[in-house]
């Protein structure tokens, strides 16, 4: 809209400006709503995973809302501060949480076209998760105890593979959808402009392996393990307690919900709403819940059917993911050559 229009016709401007403002407002509302739901549901998802897993193992398991109780219990307790901690001890939990939460804002859950649409580049998303991981690893090295350092070193090893595999997957998405943003990729898939292909199958398998590792699930890591020697993610948090541990636990739950949402949004965006269309939101929301809770039930089935790998076998598992990511791109090139 040029300046001339503004000075000449006020009413005309109002006609155009008000829908524009309302649209922006709707996008903002979707963003806030999306984040609020994700933040609220994250512990519940972890509860579903935990209970399903317990049931599959033949135990009754805790109630679904047990994670909320755990968080509340941790918040109530007075944190004990290790005497070898530095001044940065308090900073890492907040940094890990804030980076994960910012990454959560970039992933649309129930409606596309959020306020963060333009900056929701997948590389930014990967970077923010890396920032959260860096904060967690520094927390492990913070007090200078053996398990923390070992856990951080192992996490560093896994991160090499996950980051490289993720970048290859982003390349596949960019080649297929011609967009680097999560929003744009999901829109291309939702509107059916992309058919099913072998590449996408490989990409799905690879992203699942990456997601399992990034969220610290079996086979890369065991969130329920109690042997410090085998721990990766938990080992870095052993010197944290009380509210700080609560923040770290909550960040882990958020990360799990975030990965469920990301995989669902990219590979199954059908029925997702649009921010501009208010009436498409409820269906999108129902489908979103269906997706993430289905994932939360499916995850334990996978977990009880495999064993946790030895730390130095995980690179093989992730190497397969890396290879699948590479193949998904190569297949696309071959298909483009045959087709063109």
């Amino acid at each position, binding site marked *: 809209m040029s300046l001339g229009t503004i000075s000449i016709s006020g009413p005309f401007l109002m006609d155009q400006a008000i829908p524009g403002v309302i649209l922006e407002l709707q996008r903002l509302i979707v963003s806030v709503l999306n984040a609020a739901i994700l933040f609220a549901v994250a512990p519940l998802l972890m509860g579903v995973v935990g209970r399903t897993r317990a049931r599959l193992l033949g135990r009754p398991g805790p109630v679904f809302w047990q994670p909320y109780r755990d968080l509340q219990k941790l918040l109530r307790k007075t944190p004990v501060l290790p005497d*070898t901690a*530095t001044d940065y001890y308090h900073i890492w939990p907040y940094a890990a949480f804030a*980076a994960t*939460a910012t990454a959560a804002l970039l992933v649309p859950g129930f409606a596309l076209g959020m306020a963060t649409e333009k900056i929701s580049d997948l590389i930014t998303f990967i*970077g923010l998760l890396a920032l959260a991981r860096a904060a967690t690893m520094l927390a492990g090295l913070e007090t200078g105890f053996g398990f923390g350092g070992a856990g951080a070193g192992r996490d560093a090893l896994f991160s*090499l593979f996950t980051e490289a595999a993720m970048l290859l997957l982003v390349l596949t998405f960019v080649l297929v959808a011609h967009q680097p943003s999560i929003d744009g990729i999901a829109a291309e898939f939702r509107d059916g402009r992309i058919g099913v292909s072998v590449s996408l199958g490989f990409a799905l398998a690879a992203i699942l392996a990456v997601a399992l590792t990034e969220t610290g699930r079996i086979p890369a890591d065991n969130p329920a393990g109690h042997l410090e020697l085998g721990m990766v993610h938990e080992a870095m948090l052993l010197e944290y307690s009380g509210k700080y541990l609560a*923040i770290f636990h909550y960040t882990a739950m958020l990360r799990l919900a975030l990965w469920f949402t990301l995989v669902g949004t990219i590979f199954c965006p059908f029925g997702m709403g649009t921010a501009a269309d208010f009436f498409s939101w409820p269906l999108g929301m129902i489908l979103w819940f269906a997706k993430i809770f289905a994932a939360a039930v499916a995850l334990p089935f996978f977990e009880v059917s495999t064993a946790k790998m030895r730390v130095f076998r995980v690179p093989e598992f992730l190497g397969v993911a890396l290879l699948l990511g590479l193949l998904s791109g190569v297949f696309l090139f071959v298909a483009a050559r045959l087709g063109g």
Partner: protein
Amino acid sequence: MNHELTLPIGLPGQGMHLGVDPLSCLFLAILAPQILAVAVGEDRESVLFWVFVLGMVLAVVAADAFSLVFGFELMSAASWVLVLRGDRKPATLYAGIAMFSGACLVPALFLPAGGVAFGLILLGAGAKAGLAPLHAWLPRAHPAPPAGISALMSGGMVKVALYVIIRYGFVVMAPDVKPWWGIALIFAGGASVLIGSLRAVLETELKVVLACSTVEHVGLIATGLGIGLLAKGFGDNALAATALQGALLLAVAHGLFKPLLFLGAGAVKHATGTNSLDWLGGLIRGMPHLGGLMILGCAGMAALPLGPGFAPEFLLLHAVFGAAGTGGILGRIGFEALLAVLGLSAAMALVSGLRIVGIGFLGRPRTLRAAAAEEAGWPVLAGMALLAVLCVPVALLPGLLLAAMQPVFAELVPGAAPQPLAYAPFPLALLLAGFAAGAWWFVKIFGARGEREVPAWQGGFGKPPPWLPFGNPMTQATGTGFSEPIARAFGYTILGAKHLDPGEVYVLAPLARLHQVLTRAAERVRRATIRQRLAFVFGALVMFLLALGLAQGG
């Protein structure tokens, strides 16, 4: 050139031509802050330091080939003497490399534009910049001199070498560009990225880690330049602009955070007497300001988002995406492999940055000297703070910076219209700060009040006895231990069982063997008896006459 100045010295009858255009302005702007910071921090009284600076500036503002070579060699010679002050052994190696690069550059700049000339420039300037396979000297020579000189060598000197490549590849020889120029740059860059980042994870000396990370960053810049050169040759100006944006923004960012880290490493050495990560630890207690500045620099080196290193990485990755989307199938698969390499090394850069902070500055002290470290002097802190302050706009407002650099891109790729940056760190930083503040507030309201300090659990070791105030140093991970998983999974594959750099094994070691063979031959000639020498002369004479006779008779 826009503004030219002719000095009455130099080649007889021609003088020296100096001039600035947007490209040299950019590189002057990269050099200025680090020179200022090093001058504030240390070394401003040394004449050689200023000769070194003069050489770098002269190479950048040169408007003719003679001035460029003169400045470049002045820079090499001064830095050689400065390296020699630190350590004799790497200085010899460094002199060899400097002579090699001079021997390649001098003929190249006076040859007619074309493949041979660019190949020689690539060899000469690439060796000076630390591009694989001629990079093995860099992790040895850069850490040798005092920290301020290391800072300028890593932050400034390699940039001058890259400037020569840019100047000749994009401006002087622009009409003769061939695709293989870009491909050679990409290969050299990719190899440097992989080896540099891996060695940065495995090395334990702080300054060597930083030098290896310089190899990685030079590789990234070269990769960006290569993609830019290739895309420009194919007429894809938008892609060329993205790649150049990434490369040059990384040059700017690296020129800020790497000198900062080197100055900090020097201060650590001054305070503790060692630079080995295995002997440091917990430095942030004694040196809180230095520690904070180092965390900032490491965030840049690790290419973390909201740090100065992320925006260039973002642009470079998008350039690789763009390059993989066009062209023949082999090229596409090659770019995909390059992407995997960049992904691996981005993660390794993160780990090496973390390792400096986590092992060196956090945790418990591993030696008494690390426990007794005192804060660095104010000049060093002031120099580092200057660089840190300049990092902030690079980190948070890269879009503005790129807009300011637009004349450079217009000069290098005429008619390029760069796309707007899809990474907006400023809003992201606000969101991040908002979430952190929100979490802090929530925990303050709903969480338990107060904290209790207790002896650290230490995996069951519990409270140490009073004569070991920081517990047993053996019970925490060392720098070597921290990177051991990566060494096991990657190091043996890429660097071999002894973790030797391929640049040393396949370039320096054969050269050393050749040197030995030639020395032995020369020694045998020197030790020959008079009879042997007479026999040799007689034999040569017979051969000569025989050849002459055969030639005439036939």
